[in-house]
């Protein structure tokens, strides 16, 4: 029964991946490849596609594998399965949190966790910048190498984005649309002229 197998696998992925994002990839890879649902190469291809589609990666891959293996019903099963564990857990926590939020031990715990969250998001910016602005696989041995490895188009888009976002308080969705337009301009239109 493929649907049951899909459900159990993605329920497990939803239950055991803490921290979200790309922390989930190793477990997903293990499960999906071991079942023979995707080859490693297909998975790598899909990660690239998932980066250019909206939504959380774990949900995307769940839908994709479900669709490939069991059509629309398969996709429904996997997507529900991956979301269900956290849905139940968070529901309980949200209920309890309203009662215990002011508890000094809860406050103490959160006192230590809040700066971690800020640090993690700052680290995400740092990691996205280093992978987004510097070419991979290029040896950097000198200052010249460094400048040669910089992805200037991405950096320019980032700087324009910073300017319009912080200066004009653009809505986040509008910024996404603007940067999509800039991407087409810098990678599609401008290369036609030089």
């Amino acid at each position, binding site marked *: 029964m493929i649907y049951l197998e899909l459900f159990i696998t993605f329920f497990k992925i939803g239950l*055991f991946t*803490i921290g979200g994002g790309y922390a989930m990839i190793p477990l997903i890879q293990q499960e999906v490849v071991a079942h023979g649902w995707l080859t490693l190469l297909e998975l790598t291809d899909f990660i690239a596609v998932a980066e250019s589609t909206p939504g*959380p990666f*774990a949900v995307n891959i769940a839908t994709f594998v479900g669709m490939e293996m069991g059509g629309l019903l398969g996709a429904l099963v996997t997507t529900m399965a991956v979301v269900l564990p956290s849905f139940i857990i*968070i529901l309980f926590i949200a209920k309890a949190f309203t009662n215990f939020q002011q508890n000094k031990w809860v406050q103490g715990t959160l006192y230590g966790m809040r700066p971690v969250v800020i640090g993690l998001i700052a680290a995400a910016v740092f990691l996205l910048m280093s992978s987004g602005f510097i070419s991979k696989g290029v040896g950097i041995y000198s200052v010249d190498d460094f400048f040669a490895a910089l992805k200037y188009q991405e950096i320019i888009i980032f700087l324009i984005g910073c300017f319009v976002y912080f200066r004009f308080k653009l809505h986040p969705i509008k910024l996404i649309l603007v940067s999509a337009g800039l*991407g087409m301009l810098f990678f599609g239109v401008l290369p036609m002229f030089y």
Partner: protein
Amino acid sequence: MKEKNSYREKLLTVFITFFKIGLFTFGGGYAMIPLIEYETVERHHWIESKDILDIFAIAEATPGVIAVNTATFVGYKVAGFWGSLLATLGVVIPSFTIISIIALFFQEFQSLEWVGYAFKGVRAGVIVLILGAVVKMGKKGEYTPLTALILILAFGLASFTDINVIYLLLGGAVTGLVYQVWLNRKQADEKNDAVKK
């Protein structure tokens, strides 16, 4: 009757808001944080700005996808069980629909050149958004030498090692608890001293 209507309206707003969040966040995970913050705190005032960081902390420290967890949590706070269900559905449906379609045309999608260009731009734009979220939330944080140290450590370890973020969150939680124990002791000692005098 009127109350019932306003509850329905609230549910609808919750659904639409999270649908939008699900539709416009590319790159997953942290990319959703700025949009969630903007929509729930600044636009709809569902969550107080001092609470949003706590919700992100809980969403990260529990299993599952952070964006979905946050949606479930915020939905519950705004409109109870149905709120959490609609928020979760809202955040998942856009990607569900799009991926289902892509799965049918996977080969073709990969070769859409201009889509690729647009997303190269979006990836740079997302960094701007997350940077904005760091700045915004960083400003609201309460800083003591201890929290500043935790922040720097978390940043350094997450940037330069492969450590799972759950350990960082656990470390922060334990530090916070120990600090609370110490505060309690200190208060008790002070009380004792006062009684002695």
